[in-house]
């Protein structure tokens, strides 16, 4: 596990609520739609946490702006982590 993955998982647990994740181990393959069924309010809360932690370079809206419907449907925690890692300068990681 990378540090970014650990941090993103922690944010998701906080946004969703630990008690709702008893049957689910959140990892890189966890999908936002099928597995987490993240609601719009929760997406907004996650996006705020990402900006707070990683700064303006990590813009969740920009991340999904290039995706088609099937990509959005299949979007996983690992996809988001890879996006964040690619945007952060090597020094910051």
């Amino acid at each position, binding site marked *: 596990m990378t540090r970014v993955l650990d941090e993103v998982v922690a944010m998701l647990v906080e946004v969703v609520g630990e008690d709702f994740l008893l049957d689910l181990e959140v990892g890189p393959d966890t999908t936002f*739609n099928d597995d987490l069924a993240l609601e719009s309010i929760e997406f907004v809360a996650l996006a705020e946490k990402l900006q707070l932690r990683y700064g303006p370079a990590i813009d969740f809206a920009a991340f999904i702006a290039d995706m088609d419907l099937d990509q959005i449907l299949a979007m996983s925690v690992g996809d988001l982590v890879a996006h964040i890692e690619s945007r952060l300068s090597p020094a910051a990681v």
Partner: protein
Amino acid sequence: MNGRSSKARRVRVPSLLGDLPAPDGRVAGREADSGRRRFLFVVPPLTGHVNPTVAVASELSRRGHRVAWAGHTPTLEGLLKPGSKIYPAEDEAFAAHVEQARRHWTTLRGPAALKFLWDGFIIPLGHAMMPGVQTAIERFRPDVVVCDQQTLAGPVAARLHDLPWATSATTSAEFTRPLAGMPLVEEWVRDQIGEFQLDHGIEDLLDLRFSDHLVLVFSTAALIGDTSIFPDHFAFVGPVLGRPPGNDFPWEWLDEDRPSVLVSLGTLNGPAGERFFQVAAEAVKDMDVQAVFVTPPGTLPDPPPNLLVRGHVPQLELLERMSAVITHGGHNTVVEALANGLPLVVAPIRDDQPVIARQVVASGAGLTVRFARVRAEELREALHRVLTEEAFRSAADRVRRSFAEAGGAGQAADRLEKLT
């Protein structure tokens, strides 16, 4: 496709010098000079999409015009006034398929629900309705076709018959461009609409969600946000309240001196809906409110004394006695609440509901909470705030006034008359 009747009913290019009297003294091209026109409403088998057309149609009838519907006959019979003219445009085999599709739909949320809305509902419904809508146009010979935003057969058949057509937008979500942040998804939706037209022989493609003659939107800028960007043929007429008369209600249960809240989630939300009602019951049980929950009584077998569970309610009359509303954000319920100046707590589930929830928050008239994972304290705090903080009530009242000024069914009828 473009049969005999299209020639007979072709809209004429208006004469520069006005209409010359025809030999028998009638104004050419019109059904005598009585000013009476014929309006065909093309609707999907969805209650919330049919109800507003009932109010608009009854205003048109009151003015002496003739109205008819094309759609799923059994659904329409339950919602229209007795004796309304219905042209069947959905056979029972397809209706059974739709019923199944709806059950599947309610298991989906977010982008999966959007994909299914188009792939599994709007497009197949459009194809299935085409023959019936064509026949309805040939038999009823409307002057104008009023098309629900989700029935693509309406605009396509109207265009094939060269008839003016109006969009009936029973939710205002499309007017805030909810997919603007996902351009590829927005394009995918437009592609679905384009292919549908090509399948039926139309090559001059339009976005069928927005008529180029008239778009009726049953809301106003006070809720939607800036509407000045839209051309003049977009008419923001405010809500038209077309719900059929409601069921009995034990009015004596309501204490005039206590705040009252209506909790309603629409229909068919399965176990997640049941959980929401249980959490909501937990949230209100120690509050000084009376709550009316619209859900089958089995959902809450042992409700606290300040909670009344009813399978159905006369919603329009009941709203006049309420102080706030908790809802999933169905457009009709939201605008009906706001038409009474009631603040809202919105727990959006799918489709346009998150968009409508954002409109409510942006207008200042309410708050939004989670649906599937909402907690009792989250809901209690949101309800407490909308009931006690004056800002929510005054924002809701601002929307109420804007709705009242928008003209509703009368304005919709004025705009429809101008199309002929």
